[in-house]
């Protein structure tokens, strides 16, 4: 839209360090990807062993980790060592190499998704790796690779609980992917572009001004109905309560990850957390104005982080408070409810956009 596309992170590196030619671009891209990847992984590291415990404890009137280091923060390295030091048990009859590849695919696919997410500026650096014209479609494609991993793990584990979990994952993804993307398309209709930066900048205008406060034209405010639909579908997409059906520890033990231990288990957990953050990032970009927020544009990254952590908090809240729906109920909600609603939303949006524009 109006504003010129911001300088991407790799371009910034090329310019700043004067890296020459194609090789320079590759090196810059790798460095940038490593930085972004590590930021996300650092979030995960804080979220998994520490924040999750603290948050759950707060919801359940407990204290949780507070002995190791300040606020129990040193539990993070302690847990890391503990988890990695455990024996990797390879059950008899697992289908290798599928069984070994599955735990890698989950975090990898979720991390890939971050390649097109505009995470906003911090000082001179714009944390945005790539901005292809089809970025918006790409991010959903990456995010849904995750279910391949779950099916693979479920099928290769040679365990009936895992198999059930894997099958549940497929059924759930089919039921929710379509409403999710159809709802996202209504945003595309508004923005008129599939480019991530375009979708973000389309939300920078002011919607209304109430008592001197500018309410930005975030799509969550423009179309709250689509926001709620998307949020719900997103919870199912990342498999959190009330839709943690593929894992459902009290029903099918831990579903697809029942047979995984040690590093593989860590990879799965890592993948799930990255996936939650990716879900939060997609939500932020699509409906919450990306990195926009009060203050100068150069602290946008902080707002972005706040938004995805807010989403993380939301998932944890749901996990502490909400019951799990049954698989047949979920599929019913997905196919009979959300799909219809999302198409209604899409048509309505198309009409409105057509009339206004």
């Amino acid at each position, binding site marked *: 839209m109006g504003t010129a596309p911001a300088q991407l992170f790799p371009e910034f590196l090329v310019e700043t360090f004067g890296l020459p030619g194609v090789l320079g671009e590759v090196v810059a891209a790798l460095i940038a990807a490593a930085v972004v990847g590590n930021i996300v992984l650092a979030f995960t590291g804080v979220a998994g062993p520490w924040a999750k415990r603290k948050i759950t404890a707060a919801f*359940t009137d407990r204290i949780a980790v507070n002995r190791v280091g300040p606020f129990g923060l040193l539990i993070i390295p302690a847990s890391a060592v503990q988890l990695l030091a455990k024996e990797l048990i390879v059950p008899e*009859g697992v289908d290798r190499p599928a069984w070994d590849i599955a735990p890698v695919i989950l975090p990898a696919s979720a991390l890939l998704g971050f390649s097109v997410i505009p995470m906003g500026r911090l000082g001179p650096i714009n944390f945005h790796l790539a901005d292809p014209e089809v970025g918006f479609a790409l991010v959903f494609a990456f995010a849904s690779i995750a279910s391949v991993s779950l099916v693979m793990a479920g099928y290769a584990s040679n*365990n009936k*609980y895992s198999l059930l979990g894997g099958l549940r994952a497929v059924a759930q993804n089919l039921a929710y992917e379509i409403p999710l993307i159809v709802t996202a398309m209504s945003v595309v209709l508004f923005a008129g572009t599939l480019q991530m930066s375009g979708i973000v900048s389309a939300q920078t205008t002011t919607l209304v001004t109430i008592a001197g406060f500018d309410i930005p034209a975030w799509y969550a405010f423009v179309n709250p109905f689509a926001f709620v639909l998307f949020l719900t579908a997103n919870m199912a997409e990342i498999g959190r309560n009330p839709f943690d059906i593929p894992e459902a520890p009290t029903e099918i033990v831990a579903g697809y990850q029942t047979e995984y231990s040690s590093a593989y288990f860590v990879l799965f957990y890592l993948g799930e957390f990255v996936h939650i953050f990716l879900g939060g990032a997609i939500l932020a970009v699509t409906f919450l104005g990306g990195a926009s927020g009060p203050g100068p544009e150069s602290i946008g990254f902080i707002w972005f982080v706040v938004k995805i952590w807010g989403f993380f908090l939301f998932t944890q809240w749901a996990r502490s*408070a909400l019951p799990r729906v049954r698989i047949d109920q979920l599929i019913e909600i997905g196919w009979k409810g959300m799909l219809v609603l999302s198409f209604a939303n899409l048509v309505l949006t198309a009409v409105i956009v057509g009339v206004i524009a």
Partner: protein
Amino acid sequence: MSLERPDTTDDAAIERTPDELEALLGDLVVKRDDHLNAPGFVIRPDTVQETLSILKEQAGYDHLSVVSAQEYENRYESIYHLKKFDDPTQEVSVVVPADKDDPVSESAEPVFRTADWHEREAYDLIGVEYDDHPDLRRILLPETWQGHPLSMDYDKDRPQIATLPEHANPLQEHHKDDESDTMFLNIGPHHPATHGVLHLKTTLDGEQVVDVEPDIGYLHRSEEQMAQSGTYRHQIMPYPDRWDYISAGLLNEWAYARAAEDLADIEVPEYAQVIRTMGAEMCRIAAHMLALATFALDVNGDFTATFMYAINDRERVQDLLEDLTGQRLMFNYFRLGGVVWDLPEPREEFFSKTRDFLDQLPESVEEYHNLVTSNEIFQMRTIDTGILPPEVAKDYGATGPVARGSGVDYDLRRDDPYGYYDELDWDVVTEDGCDNFSRLLVRMREVEESAKIIEQCVDLLEDWPEEERNIQANVPRTLRPDDDAEIYRAVEGAKGELGIYIRSDGTDKPARFKIRSPCFSNLQTLPEMANGEYIPDVIAALGSLDIVLGEVDR
């Protein structure tokens, strides 16, 4: 009244004298063998079904509490303890002797479905064989066990080899038959939602359950045999705490106390009865809180806040019970003829702590209603799942909140009063939903009723004159009830009718000590609730039964 009269509810409700019953049964009765609690009719082993059908259909004895079996010097004997759901004080025992060399007796399973497991247990532990039983296998012990441990010629020193039973390998292929494409799934014995070591042999068609068969006995600790080798006066009382160990200890102790006190004709002082009533209801709150907590785990997932909230509330009751009894789980607080000691000093402090708990309780219950029962997803999950129709519940001998959640208005505290209950003002809670939701709701509402009872007890105890605080009757050091006296007595435990059958032989130890566990009977209803439902519903149904394996397996 004549035999030809059609069965009407009025007819069934009539209370008959033992002689009228004998006339009703006519030639079926070989002789009388009355028990302390009920008239007993000895019948021939091949007329069990006929006798029980007459008693069930024409005399209205629709509740087979328990089947207790035992071996004598010259015969085996199975006793069917019958009651009426409408009035459990009307009891009758049907005594079925079986031949010493060839102990075969007709099965009661076609008349009362609940006899299935009870007879399997009798076969397993005593060795009576039941003709016409659909599935006479061992139930508590491994299938390969040699001998019957409670029979007289059992050699306990003989080494036993317990091999892994069929389907022990969870990876093993199993289909119901060649054509169907069902999948066999072992749920348990180690599974997050089996509430202990319970094994459900499940056959699945996709996500739907075709068949589920509970496999129990993993926690069998010979509780009956241990009680039989302890003296009435002192050595048995610690055991009941270990049956339903989910802090329902005092309720269990009361079951033994009631049976033994009636057997030995011991009168309990009123003051002790009030203390017992108060303690028992505290235990009920603790047990129901845990039931709520674990049900939330099963339905919500394992990080639900409800679990910790309910555990917190249970902790408060637990503190009160600790103050009262000096113990947190294995109370050992009751004595035959009373309780072991008076309320803790200073009494005012105990009363005020109890009142604080009671004052805060409505707020907690309100919170649970907000968090759990009024949640739409929760309702979607639990309403109309795990259906247990009242007739089926009765047929299986289901009692307690499970039966009351199916609208069966049966509570021994009111219907067969003991302790101080009939002096107090409280209500029996029933719900007509017959589903998982109703069973949970019954428990939550019972907590409020229990609180009412405790409050009244505290009022009474506070004003009790100091000189009349008699906590124990005078009971001889050694109790030797009359030879061959038999009694079955039950109390309303946290899970339902917890009954004890004792036969004395003139010594200071019981000759036969049989525990009627409510969980054992309730668990039998699981296939009725689960078949045709989805896996998550089976888990929810199991949670709503609120079983404790310590009590199921004993």
